[in-house]
C-alpha cells in the first residue's frame, strides 16, 4: 500500500522529482565524466607506454658505436638499449619531418594502424598517423625525404604511433602541433649511405624504475660518447602530456566539485520540501498506527531510489558523454592510440556519497516531523511563525515598507534555509560564469602583454653561437642593432645556490618592460640589476638589496644592487643593461637580434639559426586558447543550466508553499499582476545579492586557479575585463528573471476554490 502511495506521490510531485533526478544526474555526470577523462588520460598513457615499451632514459651524443651499445647493455638493471639517429629533414612541399633511423624497434615500439611493423631489412618509411591523415598518405604512396644532400624516395610501409612522439612540434615557438606541416618518420638505418650511418641517441630501457638514477650515473661514467643522459619524464613529449593531466586536475577538479555542490544544494532543498509538504500525511500515517521506522523507511525510499537511479545514469553518462568528449578532444592534440575514458573509483565513491546524503537528508527531515506528536502535526494548519524572529521587521524602517516588501522579508526570514540555498546556488552560477569568461580574459591579457607590450618587434633572429664579429656587424647593419643575450647564472642566497638566468638587453625599444600594473617602465639604468616582482616576492628581495651571483662556467662572483622591478609573465629572472654587464668586465656577445623589418619571405639568413615570427608565436598561443574556448562554453552552458534549474526549483517550491496565500490575495481582489510582482520580487533580490557575492568570488576563483595550476616560473593571475563582470551579472540576472517570470505565470491559473479548500 505504501509503495502505491510512493508512486502516486512521485507522480503528483513529478516536477520536483524530475528536478532531483536531473540535479543528481548532472552533478554526478559532470564529476564522473571529468574524473573518467582525467583518469582515462593517465591510464591510456600508462597502458600505451607499458605495452609499447617507452624508453626510460635517452642518451645523447655525437656518435655511438657498437661497443657503446654493448657497454650500456651490460650495465646492471639495463634491460635493453637501442641506437637511433634523429635528424630534422624536409619532404615534399617543403614540410618538416622529424627523421629517426633505427636498427631495431623493441623500445618505443610502433603502434601500427595500417601496414606492417618495423623490419630493418624492409625498404620504406613509417610515418605518424596524423601526418598521414592530414596529407592523405596511404600505404604504398611514395614520399621524398631530404636531408642535406641526401635524397631518399620511400614507400610508406606503415602508419603508426610512436610512444616517445606523443607530442612533437617543429620548434619550441610552436605550441599547437600542426600535423599537416610537421610529421614524424622512421626508417631503417640501412636506407642511409654507409658513410652516414651514425647514431646520436641511445634509448635505454631499465628493468627497475627505482634504479634509473644509478643507471644514469653509470652511463655517464662508462660511456665516453655520452654527452647527456635525460629521464624520459623530462622530455617534451612526456611532460606536455603529463602537464595536461596535472593542470586539468586542478582546474577541472574545482569545476566538477562546484557543479556537484550546487546540484546537491538544490536536491537537498527539494527533498526537504517534498517531505515537509507531506507533514499532514505523516501525521495521519502515525495516527493510523504505522510504526515510526516504517514511515521513515517509506520516506527515505523517495530519496534513495531516485538518487540511486540518477547516480547510475550519471556515472554512465559521465563516462560516455563527458569522458569521451574530452578524451577525443585531447587525442586530436596528442598522438596516442586507443584513448578512452576510465572510470575512477572516486566516481563510484562520490555516487554512493550522493545517494547516502540524499537519503540522510530525507531521514533527518522526516524524523523532525515524526518527533512532534501526531495531534500537533495534524492540527497546525498555520505554519508556526515565531514572534521573536520576525519582531524586528515590525518596527523602525520596516514599518514604512510596502506590503510586498514586508511580506517578502518575512518570507525570507522564515525560510532561511531555502533562501540560503538559493543564494548559494545562484552565487555559484555567477561565479562559474565570471570564472569561465575570466579565464579567457586573463589569457588574452597575457597574450596582449607578452606579444604587444613586451615584444615590440616583428621578428626575432636567433644568432649562431659561433658568429664572428664581422658577421654580427653585417647583420646589425642590415636589420638594426637591437640585440639581447641570456646568460645562465647561479645566485647565492645564503648557503644555497640557485640557478637562474640574466637577460642582458641592448634591444632599445624593441623589448619593453612593464611594472606590476602592466604600465611601461624603463630598464635603462647602468648601475645595477632589475628583478621580476615574483622573483623578488618568492626570494624576499627588496629594493637596494645586494645579490651575489656568477655566470655558469666561470667561478668569478659579482655583487649587484637591485635598482628596479619588472613584471614578466613567463620568466622570473634578472635583467640588466648591456652597459652594466660590460662595466662588470664581462664581454657582451648577443645571442638574439630583434627587428621590425618584414621577413615574411625570408627563409634563411646566414649565421642565423632560427627566424621567429612574433605573430606565429602569438598564433600558437591563440590556437591553444581555441581548445580552452570549447571547455569554457561547456562550463557556461552547464552553469546556466544549473542556475536555471536551481532558481526554477526553489521558485516552484516557494510557489507551492505560497499558493494558498496567493489564492487568499486573489479572493480579496488583488490583481494577478500585483501577485506576480510580489512573487518575483523575492527572486530578484536573491539574484542581486548572489551576483554581488558571486562576482568577486569569481575573480578570486580565477586568480586562485591561475596561481595554483600554473608553474612557478609564470607570473599571472586573473585579469578580468569590466565587461565580463557586466555580462556575468546581467546574464545571471536574466536567467533568474526569466525563470521567475515563467513561474509567475502560474498565478493566473490559481484555482481559488480548490486552493482554499485544501490546506496543504
Amino acid at each position, binding site marked *: 500500500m505504501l509503495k502505491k502511495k510512493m508512486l502516486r506521490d512521485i507522480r503528483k510531485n513529478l516536477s520536483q522529482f524530475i528536478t532531483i533526478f536531473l540535479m543528481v544526474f548532472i552533478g554526478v555526470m559532470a564529476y564522473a565524466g571529468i574524473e573518467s577523462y582525467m583518469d582515462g588520460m593517465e591510464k591510456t598513457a600508462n597502458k600505451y607506454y607499458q605495452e609499447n615499451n617507452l624508453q626510460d632514459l635517452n642518451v645523447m651524443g655525437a656518435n655511438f658505436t657498437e661497443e657503446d651499445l654493448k657497454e650500456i647493455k651490460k650495465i646492471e638493471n639495463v634491460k635493453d638499449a637501442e641506437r637511433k639517429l634523429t635528424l630534422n629533414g624536409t619532404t615534399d612541399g617543403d614540410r618538416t619531418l622529424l627523421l629517426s633511423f633505427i636498427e631495431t624497434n623493441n623500445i618505443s615500439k610502433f603502434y601500427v594502424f595500417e601496414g606492417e611493423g618495423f623490419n630493418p631489412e624492409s625498404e620504406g618509411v613509417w610515418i605518424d598517423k596524423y601526418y598521414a591523415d592530414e596529407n592523405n598518405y596511404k600505404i604504398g604512396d611514395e614520399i621524398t625525404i631530404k636531408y642535406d644532400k641526401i635524397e631518399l624516395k620511400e614507400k610508406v610501409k606503415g602508419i603508426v604511433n610512436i610512444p616517445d612522439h606523443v607530442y612533437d612540434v617543429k620548434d619550441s615557438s610552436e605550441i599547437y602541433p600542426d600535423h599537416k606541416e610537421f610529421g614524424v618518420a622512421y626508417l631503417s638505418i640501412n636506407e642511409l649511405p654507409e658513410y652516414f650511418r651514425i647514431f646520436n641517441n641511445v634509448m635505454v630501457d631499465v628493468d627497475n624504475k627505482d634504479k634509473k638514477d644509478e643507471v644514469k650515473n653509470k652511463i655517464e661514467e662508462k660511456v665516453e660518447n655520452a654527452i647527456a643522459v635525460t629521464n624520459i619524464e623530462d622530455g617534451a613529449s612526456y611532460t606536455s602530456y603529463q602537464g595536461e593531466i596535472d593542470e586539468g586536475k586542478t582546474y577541472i577538479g574545482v569545476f566538477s566539485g562546484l557543479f556537484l555542490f550546487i546540484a546537491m544544494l538544490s536536491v537537498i532543498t527539494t527533498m526537504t520540501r517534498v517531505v515537509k509538504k507531506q507533514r499532514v500525511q505523516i501525521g495521519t500515517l502515525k495516527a493510523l498506527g504505522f510504526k515510526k521506522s516504517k514511515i521513515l523507511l517509506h520516506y527515505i525510499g523517495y530519496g534513495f531510489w531516485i538518487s540511486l537511479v540518477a547516480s547510475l545514469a550519471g556515472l554512465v553518462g559521465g563516462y560516455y558523454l563527458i569522458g569521451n568528449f574530452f578524451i577525443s578532444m585531447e587525442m586530436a592534440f596528442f598522438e596516442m592510440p586507443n584513448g578512452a575514458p576510465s572510470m575512477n573509483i572516486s566516481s563510484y565513491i562520490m555516487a554512493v556519497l550522493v545517494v547516502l546524503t540524499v537519503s540522510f537528508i530525507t531521514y533527518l527531515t522526516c524524523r523532525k516531523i515524526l518527533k512532534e506528536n501526531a495531534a500537533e502535526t495534524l492540527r497546525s*494548519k*498555520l*505554519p*508556526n*511563525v515565531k*514572534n521573536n524572529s*520576525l519582531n524586528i521587521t*515590525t518596527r523602525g524602517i520596516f514599518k514604512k515598507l510596502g*506590503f510586498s516588501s*514586508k*511580506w517578502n522579508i*518575512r*518570507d525570507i526570514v*522564515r525560510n532561511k534555509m531555502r533562501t540560503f540555498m538559493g543564494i548559494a546556488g545562484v552565487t555559484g552560477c555567477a561565479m562559474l560564469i565570471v570564472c569561465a569568461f575570466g579565464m579567457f580574459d586573463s589569457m588574452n591579457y597575457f597574450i596582449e602583454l607578452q606579444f604587444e607590450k613586451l615584444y615590440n618587434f616583428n621578428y626575432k633572429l636567433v644568432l649562431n653561437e659561433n658568429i664572428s664579429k664581422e658577421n654580427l656587424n653585417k647583420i646589425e647593419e642590415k636589420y638594426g642593432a637591437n640585440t639581447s643575450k641570456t646568460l645562465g647564472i647561479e645566485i647565492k642566497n645564503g648557503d644555497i645556490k640557485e640557478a637562474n638566468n640574466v637577460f642582458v638587453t641592448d634591444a632599445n625599444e624593441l623589448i619593453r618592460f612593464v611594472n606590476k600594473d602592466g604600465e611601461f617602465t624603463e630598464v635603462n639604468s647602468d648601475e645595477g640589476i632589475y628583478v621580476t616582482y615574483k622573483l623578488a616576492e618568492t626570494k624576499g628581495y627588496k629594493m637596494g638589496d645586494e645579490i651575489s651571483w656568477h655566470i655558469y662556467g666561470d667561478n668569478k662572483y659579482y655583487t649587484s644592487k637591485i635598482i628596479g622591478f619588472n613584471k614578466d609573465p613567463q620568466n622570473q629572472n634578472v635583467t640588466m643593461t648591456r652597459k652594466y654587464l660590460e662595466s662588470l668586465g664581462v664581454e657582451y656577445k648577443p645571442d638574439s637580434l630583434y627587428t621590425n623589418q618584414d621577413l615574411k619571405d625570408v627563409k634563411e639568413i646566414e649565421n642565423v639559426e632560427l627566424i621567429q615570427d612574433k605573430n606565429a608565436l602569438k598564433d600558437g598561443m591563440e590556437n591553444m586558447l581555441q581548445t580552452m574556448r570549447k571547455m569554457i562554453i561547456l562550463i557556461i552552458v552547464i552553469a546556466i543550466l544549473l542556475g536555471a534549474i536551481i532558481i526554477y526549483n526553489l521558485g516552484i517550491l516557494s510557489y507551492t508553499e505560497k499558493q*494558498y*496565500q496567493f*489564492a*487568499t*490575495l*486573489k*479572493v*480579496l*481582489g*488583488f*490583481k*494577478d499582476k*500585483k501577485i506576480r510582482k510580489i512573487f518575483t520580487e523575492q527572486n530578484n533580490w536573491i539574484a542581486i545579492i548572489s551576483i554581488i557575492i558571486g562576482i568577486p568570488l569569481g575573480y578570486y576563483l580565477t586568480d586562485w586557479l591561475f596561481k595554483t595550476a600554473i608553474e612557478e616560473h609564470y607570473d599571472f593571475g586573473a585579469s578580468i575585463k569590466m565587461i565580463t563582470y557586466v555580462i556575468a551579472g546581467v546574464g545571471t540576472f536574466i536567467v533568474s528573471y526569466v525563470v521567475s517570470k515563467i513561474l509567475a505565470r502560474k498565478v*493566473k491559473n490559481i484555482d*481559488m*476554490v480548490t486552493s*482554499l*479548500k485544501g*490546506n496543504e
Partner: protein
Amino acid sequence: MEKIVEIKKLTKSYKVGENEFNALDNIDLSLNKGEFIVILGPSGAGKSTLLNLIGGMDTPSKGDILIDGENISKYNEKQLNDYRAENIGFIFQFYNILPTLTVLENVELVRDIVKNPIDSKEALKGVGLEKHKNKFPSQLSGGEQQRVSIARAIAKNPKLLLCDEPTGALDSKTGVEVLKLLRKQCDGNEGANTVIIVTHNSLIAEIADTVVHVKNGKIESVTSNEHPKRIDEVGW
C-alpha cells in the same frame, strides 16, 4: 424590495472521470438587499459552490447571476477580479489569513485593493482585537484568527459579505461572538450591506432574515423569518 442577488437557471457541473456531475442543477433564486441570509443544507449539497459563484470565485456552466442588476456570469477573469475587489468580502472556515503578516497588517492589506476602506484600527476595534494588533496569527486562538478575517472583510466595506462555515472550526461560545459581529455588519450602514452565511448548522438559521434550503444541488425552499431570534436566544 430591492434584490441584491438574482440567479436564473444556474447550473454548475464538474467532470468526474467520464461523467458530468451537477453540483448545482438549474436553480433560480433571488435574495433581498440588506438581509442576513443563511444558506442551509447537508454536507455536499452544493452550498459552497453556490457561494463561490456569487462571489465571483468561480464561473457557472450555465445560467446567469445578477448582482445589483449586473450580470457577472458574463464577466471575464479581469472583470471578476475587479468585481471581487469592489464588492465582496469573504470569510472562510479556515480563516485564510496570511501567517507572515501581523494582525494589523493583515487588515491593512485591503488598502492596496479598495479606494475607500474603513480604517484598519477601527475595524479591529470592531472585532475587539485592537490590543492584539501587533501579534502574528499563529499567536492567536482560532476564534481570534477568525475575527481577524472578519475585520479584514469588513474593512473593505463590501456590499456583500460571504461567509463559508465561519463558525465551523470554532466552539459555540466563540461561534456566537463571531455571529454577533456578522449580524452587526448587516444591521449597520442603513441596510446597504448584505451578509450571506453558508452552514450545515440549522440552529444558525433561526437568526436569519431569510433561509435558503439546499439539497442535492437544488433549492428545496426559501423561507423568511418574520421575527428572527436574537443570537443570544439560540440555544447551542
